[in-house]
C-alpha cells in the first residue's frame, strides 16, 4: 500500500498530463468530421500494426501444432489420392483405354492456401482478413475452409493483395446445409452468442436427427463445395408448430485459432449462375 502511494506521488503529474492530453485529443477528434476521420484512420493504422505484429509472434509459436495438423492433412489427402488413382485405373479399364491415354476428370474446385491476417469472434459481424487478393487469384464469393477442410466463411471483398471473408460467426451470414446421414436440408446461421455454436434451422420434422450427427454444406450456393463439414448436432428441438426442428450445432472449425485457411473456387459457379439468371421459357413457348 505504501509502495502504491509512493508510486502515485512520484507519477501523479505524468498521469494527470496523460489524462488531460487524452481528453483534449478526444475533444479535438470529435470537433469536426475531418479531425474525426483523420484521427480514427490514424488510430486504426496503429491498431492494425500492433495487431499484425502480435499475430506474427502468435503465428511463430503456433508453428509446431500447425505442422502436426498439416502432416495429418497430407496423410488424409494421400489416402484420397490413392482412392482417386484406383478409380481412374478402373475407369480406364472399363473404357478400354491404354496407359498412355489420359482419362479426363474435370476439376470443379480449385484450392488456394491463404494466411489469416486478422480475425474477430467477439462482434455480431465478424470478418477475417486474408493475405491473398486478386493478384493471387482470389475472387469474391470464394469459400473459405479451415486447413482441415471445415467451413469457415466466404470472401466478400478483395483488393490486389488482400481479401476479407465474412466469417460463419456473422449474424448476416446464412448457408444451406444438410444432415450428412439423413440428407434433410436446413439453414445454418449464427445468432451472435457462443463462438463455437450455431443454429441449424428449418429441418423437416420427418428428419432422423440424433446428437452428434454431422451437418455438411448442401452445395446449393455454388460457392461451398457440397459435403464440406460445418459442424455436429448438439441438440435438436421440435418447434412449437411441430413442422420443423431447430438444432444447435457445434461448429467443426475452431474459429478462434485460425491461422491458415483454404480458399475454394468453384469453376462451374459462373456457368450455373448465368443459366439461373436467364429467363425461363413460358408454358406456351415450350409447347
Amino acid at each position: 500500500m505504501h509502495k502504491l502511494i509512493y508510486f502515485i506521488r512520484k507519477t501523479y503529474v505524468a498521469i494527470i498530463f496523460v489524462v488531460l492530453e487524452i481528453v483534449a485529443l478526444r475533444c479535438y477528434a470529435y470537433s469536426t468530421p475531418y479531425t474525426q476521420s483523420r484521427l480514427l484512420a490514424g488510430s486504426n493504422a496503429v491498431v492494425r500494426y500492433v495487431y499484425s505484429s502480435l499475430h506474427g509472434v502468435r503465428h511463430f509459436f503456433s508453428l509446431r501444432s500447425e505442422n502436426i495438423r498439416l502432416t495429418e492433412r497430407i496423410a488424409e489427402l494421400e489416402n484420397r489420392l490413392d482412392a482417386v488413382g484406383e478409380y481412374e485405373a478402373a475407369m480406364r479399364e472399363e473404357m478400354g483405354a491404354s496407359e498412355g491415354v489420359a482419362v479426363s476428370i474435370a476439376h470443379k474446385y480449385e484450392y488456394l492456401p491463404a494466411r489469416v491476417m486478422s480475425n474477430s469472434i467477439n462482434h455480431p459481424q465478424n470478418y477475417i482478413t486474408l493475405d491473398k487478393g486478386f493478384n493471387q487469384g482470389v475472387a469474391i464469393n470464394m469459400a473459405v475452409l479451415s486447413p482441415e477442410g471445415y467451413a469457415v466463411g466466404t470472401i466478400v471483398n478483395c483488393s490486389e493483395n488482400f481479401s476479407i471473408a465474412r466469417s460463419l460467426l456473422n449474424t448476416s451470414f446464412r448457408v444451406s446445409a444438410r444432415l450428412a446421414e439423413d440428407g434433410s436440408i436446413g439453414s445454418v446461421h449464427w445468432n451472435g452468442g457462443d463462438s463455437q455454436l450455431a443454429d441449424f434451422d428449418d429441418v423437416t420434422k420427418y428428419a432422423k436427427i440424433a446428437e452428434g450427427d454431422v451437418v455438411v454444406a448442401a452445395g446449393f450456393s455454388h460457392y461451398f463445395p457440397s459435403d464440406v463439414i460445418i459442424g455436429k448436432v448438439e441438440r435438436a428441438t421440435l418447434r412449437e408448430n411441430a413442422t420443423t426442428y431447430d438444432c444447435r450445432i457445434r461448429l467443426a472449425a475452431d474459429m478462434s485459432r485460425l491461422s491458415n485457411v483454404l480458399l475454394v473456387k468453384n469453376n462451374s459457379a459462373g456457368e450455373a449462375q448465368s443459366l439461373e439468371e436467364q429467363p425461363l421459357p413460358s408454358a406456351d413457348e415450350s409447347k
Partner: protein
Amino acid sequence: MKGKGSYALFFLVTVMVQVFLLNNLTVSVLFAPMAYVACLIMMPLDSSPIKMLLTALAIGLLMDFTMGTEGLNVIATLPVAFFRRPILSFVAGFSDFDKEEGAPSEKRLGVYRYHRYIVTMVVFHSLLLFSVEHLSFDNFGLFLARFVCSTLASLVAVYFLLLLFTPKFSAK
C-alpha cells in the same frame, strides 16, 4: 519577475495581444503567430510541474475558447509545460529548479542558453500545434511553409512581449 503581480500582468497582456491582435491578423494563411506560449516560457524556474501543467491547461482552454478550436491549443500547451524541465536541462543546462527563483533570464541561464531555450520552446509548441492541426502529411509543402512562417512570426511576437516586460524582471 518581481512577483505574482508582474507575472499576472504579463499573462494578461500576452493573452490580450494574442486574442485581440494576433488572432485577427489576416496577412496570409501561412502566418498564425502564437505568442501565448510566452506565458509558459516565462513561468518562474521553481514552478512545480503540476503548477506548470495547470497553467498550460488554463492558457490552452482560454485560447481554444477564443479561437473556437476545441482542444487543439490544450494538446499543444500541455506537452510544452510537461517537458519544460527536461528542455531547460538539456537545452539550457539548468538543473537547480529548487534553488533558483524567478523567471528565466539571460542572467540566470546565460545569453546563448536563454535564447536557445526560448527558440526550442516556441518551435516545440508550433510543431505540436500545426502537426495536430494538419493531421496529415499529404500536403507536406503547405504544412512546412505554415510551420516555418508561423514559428518565425511567433518568435517575433514572443520577443516583442519579452522586450516590453524585461524591465520588470528581477535584477538577478
